[in-house]
């Protein structure tokens, strides 16, 4: 079987696994645990989509929450103001439509911001994207029909385990395939040495914009999922801090390591919840759980600056276990 066909097979296996897992999850977990699981899934989508921009293409974006906000507002506004609450198959179909609409509007925003600002590099780009995120927040705050600073409330709850992790599976599939294509090579070339890449004819601007558009698209979808789970979205939740939270997940997981980033997203979303109940030597962690959260970030950065799985390569790992010799990297296509 060719590599391409195999990746489709993996996607199908992934879908089957998610549907299979959903039954014990829905039955065995109470609604609090389920909420953690869904929040973990949404964080994973956000982190993995930012990883395309920050990790693979090496562009330091600090505006990911802005894309998420656009997606969340588009999807939620469509549901609450245009379609209304529905049930059954119509609901699932409409949910897909609004999610994609959210993703597309975020992608358009990604394109609009990408074209002029991606001529900038490093810190300058970080500042522009940061400004973009804040602009989105402030603009949303001042649009009365979208609820102003209170935001959109009363969004029906459509997001389920299958939706969240199904979309995550698609994102992983897209990322893995993208990275094995010309685009992926372009992303890496842009990240590793922009000048060298330009000099051999790689259109780095094109790759940067592509990474931005794809990343923004999935961030928008994540926003839609978030809105349809939390029942209320407000501009304040898509501020600078949210963007930083996502960047931290990417850096902690290891820039450019999809699995590492997913692991970090899960850890960082779960840890604050886990710390609610922990008691060591009679001290309740509840009161300073955010301190512990911050402390674990500092420690991890000191002892694993490359991130959790920054230098981990799944294929090499499997090969090592099987005891097969390492293939030269250049033959990979």
């Amino acid at each position, binding site marked *: 079987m060719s590599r391409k066909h195999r990746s489709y097979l993996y996607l199908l296996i992934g879908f089957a696994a998610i549907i299979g897992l959903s039954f014990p999850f829905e039955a065995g977990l*109470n*609604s609090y*645990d389920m909420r953690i699981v869904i929040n973990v899934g949404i964080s994973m989508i956000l982190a993995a989509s930012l990883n395309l921009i920050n990790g693979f293409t090496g562009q330091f974006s600090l505006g990911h929450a802005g894309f998420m906000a656009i997606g969340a507002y588009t999807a939620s506004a469509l549901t609450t103001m245009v379609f209304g609450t529905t049930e059954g198959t119509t609901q699932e179909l409409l949910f897909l439509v609004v999610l994609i609409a959210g993703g597309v509007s975020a992608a358009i925003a990604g394109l609009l911001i990408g074209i002029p600002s991606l001529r900038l590099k490093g810190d300058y780009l970080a500042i522009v994207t940061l400004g973009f995120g804040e602009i989105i927040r402030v603009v949303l705050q001042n649009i009365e029909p979208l609820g102003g*600073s209170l*935001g959109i409330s*009363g969004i029906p709850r459509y997001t389920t385990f299958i939706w969240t992790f199904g979309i995550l599976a698609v994102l992983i599939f897209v990322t893995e395939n993208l990275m094995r294509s010309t685009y992926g090579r372009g992303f890496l070339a842009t990240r590793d040495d922009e000048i060298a890449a330009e000099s051999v004819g790689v259109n780095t601007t094109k790759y940067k914009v592509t990474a931005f558009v794809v990343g923004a698209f999935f961030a928008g979808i994540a926003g839609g999922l978030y809105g349809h*789970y939390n029942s209320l979205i407000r501009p304040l*939740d898509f501020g600078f801090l949210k963007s930083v939270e996502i960047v931290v997940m990417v850096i902690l997981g290891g820039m450019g390591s999809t699995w590492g980033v997913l692991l970090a997203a899960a850890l960082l979303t779960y840890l604050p919840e886990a710390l*609610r109940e922990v008691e060591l030597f009679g001290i309740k962690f509840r009161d300073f759980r955010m301190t512990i959260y911050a402390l674990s970030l500092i420690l991890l950065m000191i002892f694993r600056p490359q991130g959790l799985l920054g230098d981990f390569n799944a294929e090499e790992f499997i090969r090592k276990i099987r005891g097969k010799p390492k293939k030269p990297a250049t033959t990979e296509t």
Partner: protein
Amino acid sequence: MYRLITLLFAGLLAGIMISCGGNGGNEEESDVIKIGHFASLQGDIATFGQQTDKGIKLAVEEINANGGVLGKQIQLITEDTRSTTQDAGLAAEKLISNDGVTVLLGEVASSLSLVAAPIAEREQVPMLTPSSTNPEVTVDKNGNVRKYVFRVCFIDPFQGKVMAKFAKENLSTQRIAILKDNANDYSVGLAKNFRETFEAMGGEILAEQAFEAKQVDFKSQLTDIRDMNPDAIYVPGYYTEVSLIAEQARDLGITVPLLGGDGWDSPELTKGKFKEALEGCYFSNHYSVEDTTAKVKAFTEKYDQSYGELPGAMSALGYDAMYIVADAITRAGSTDSEAVTKALSETKDFPGITGNITIDEQHNAEKSAVVLMIKEGKFTYFATMEP
């Protein structure tokens, strides 16, 4: 060495994860009544969340010292929301699903209460919010009253109206400028209702200027306002910005009084250099610390003894909310959620610190507001405004 430390660290993490897997199965503890409070103990509005929690804790201590409710002790579980909607959902869901609380208390910010309200509805657990003033918390967008959600405070429209009425009738002002916080739904709501009432009464709103929370320079807005020469300025914001606004207004030579809402209520408002600037200003509030009735006096003294500070409105509302819950459980005679919900909706003339509280058909509290005047840095009672 590094490897060892990394291993240790990973071990600690794993330990934390394992140790929290084993809770949740202890719902059938019948010797205590569990009350859950989800509050912003960190983040933007942490002061309000902490104040509310202190008020509730004080009430729980008193109730337990007096033999508890239905012969059982009350166990208060407080969960942090970090002032974010994501954590508000998690905290509310945890209290209901893992801890199995009888009643959910919480949130100061209306947006955070709005995340928890659908959860309370779905899980059919009564929820009582001490200080969320947005009307939508108890009545959803389609005008349906949420069956399980109640509040013990008045709502934004009422507070805005009260201040407009006060400005027009008690202060006889005619021309007012508004300076609101655009990032804050509470401030926007108050400004809107103030404007409507004031204009309906024949007054004139000269301008509606906006600022953003965390801003520190308000001179451009204030200069505009100064040039219009208003009789008073309505600043329905939180105390953090109001102090700075007052100081800068006085620097610019604006001498007219500033008017505000319950967001002003913090000892921080008139601390140090801000004392002069806020002299002679007025704001609407839930109660007055200076109230000399025995009930309020006992409360403020006890609070002072426990925490070494005077209680703010949020503490008083938290305290009242807890007592109303205890009262409802007593009247219901059980901790069954339907019975408690019914008892809560039938709360009538409950003598609280913040006035006599009656829960109306829309699950709001019907009660009067007080207007406080700032005199020598102290919040002194000025007038009571009836609904």
